[in-house]
């Protein structure tokens, strides 16, 4: 059974054992508009919670992608680099960004569940 959590920076996290799959939420993709460029960190690199872990650019602006969890990147989704428009089509499914092997599972505690995130994103959308 996998569990999905959300961060205040509008990332979603799917937890399966030691592995977290991370992407940006549908709300974030809608706010960004048409995404035309993605840059991801290299596979094998280590990322720190709340640190920058890539960039997405829409036709409007560039935005940093943050990782809500620390760990080692064990996989990145090359298909969104090759075709960034996939992120607007299926942000919370096929268009995941990277998978990491968690360093500290207690970091999950700072994340929100779906209900909390929906409320948060509603209050914070302008």
């Amino acid at each position, binding site marked *: 059974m996998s569990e999905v959590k959300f961060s205040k920076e509008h990332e979603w996290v799917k937890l399966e054992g030691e592995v977290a799959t991370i992407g940006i939420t549908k709300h974030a993709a809608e706010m960004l*508009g*048409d995404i*035309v*460029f993605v*840059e991801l960190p290299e596979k094998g690199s280590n990322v720190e919670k709340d640190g920058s872990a890539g*960039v997405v*650019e*829409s*036709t*409007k*602006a*560039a935005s940093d992608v943050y990782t809500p969890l620390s760990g080692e990147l064990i996989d990145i989704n090359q298909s969104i680099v090759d075709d*960034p*428009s996939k992120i*607007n089509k299926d942000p919370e499914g096929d268009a995941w960004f990277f998978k990491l092997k968690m360093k500290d599972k207690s970091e999950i505690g700072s994340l929100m569940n779906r209900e909390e995130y929906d409320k948060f994103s509603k209050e914070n959308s302008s």
Partner: protein
Amino acid sequence: MESKKTSLFNLHQKHEAKFVEFAGYKMPIQYKDGIIQEHKFTRTKSGIFDVSHMGQLFIRGKEDLTKSLEKLFPLDLKKLNLDQSKYSFLMNDEAGIYDDLIITKIKEGYLIILNAACKNQDYKIIEEKLDNNYEMNLSENLSLIAIQGPDAKNVLEKVIPNSNKLKFMNGKNFNFEDSSIYITRSGYTGEDGFEISINNNKTQKLVELLLENGSKLIGLGARDTLRLEAGLCLYGNDIDLKTSPIEANLKWAIAKSRIETDYPGSNIIKNQIKNGVKKLRVGIKPETRVIARGETKIYNDQNKEIGKITSGTFGPSVECSIAMGYVENTYCSIDTKIFLEVRGKKVPANICNLPFYKKNYLKGEINV
């Protein structure tokens, strides 16, 4: 100060526009289809743009008005026919650009279309230079609507018969719902199209009819990607008080007959034409999908800074990253390899021809 709304604000809302604050106006950046779809729809069908935030300045006066305006603009206005338009600039004495504009000769004088962010300052500058000798009116009662794209002429023809007979950079008065409207064949997307000056209270009706005939509302986001693909300058990004028309590679807009005569900045322009310029506006294509936006620094292969980007985006029709910027004149030839510093990394790029997207203007009388 509360932002202004155009006469189409309610229609924008109905079409699910996302709004941005632009030059004191609440303007639609995009609608529900998004920038890329809106851009492509304009290139393949036709798009309607609300550009009512732009200034419509009417200057009326007797015969000496033409002579007085020639002291302001590097144009041969004496040769401008009735209803003919020209692209030009308002410059300071250093040939820096206060604004770029379209000036059209109309029955009682001239109509000048100004950028929204510059229009009030332009008014003051022009008023002062003309010594208050003429009747000037920066209209608040008129909206400005553009319809652009290969289908624009057919769509507009159904609503305004005979509009498709207009020639490029020419205008005419038409009748719509017992109201006089002024249409010019022009635009800023690289497509054939029209700009329509119309009373605020008739605007929504006209746009609804254009929509019924197959056109769609397009936001400022797609307007920006369209103009950049067409290699056209955005005032405040690509041209400003620190760039001259010669540096901006817009020499074509300066009338040949005026090069030796007097207007603001004329000495500098003459000198730059004769001796060349230190920096020049060029087209730039990054070798990857990375987008180099305004202010991105440009380097040569020896890591020496040689210029900066002024506009950059992803071009939906050319399907690659595109940019414009200024480089030192020794680096402006086509295919020169340069490097753009984006987020700390040097991205390889090449100087390229403008426009990125081949223009589809109506063929016809184009005399510069």
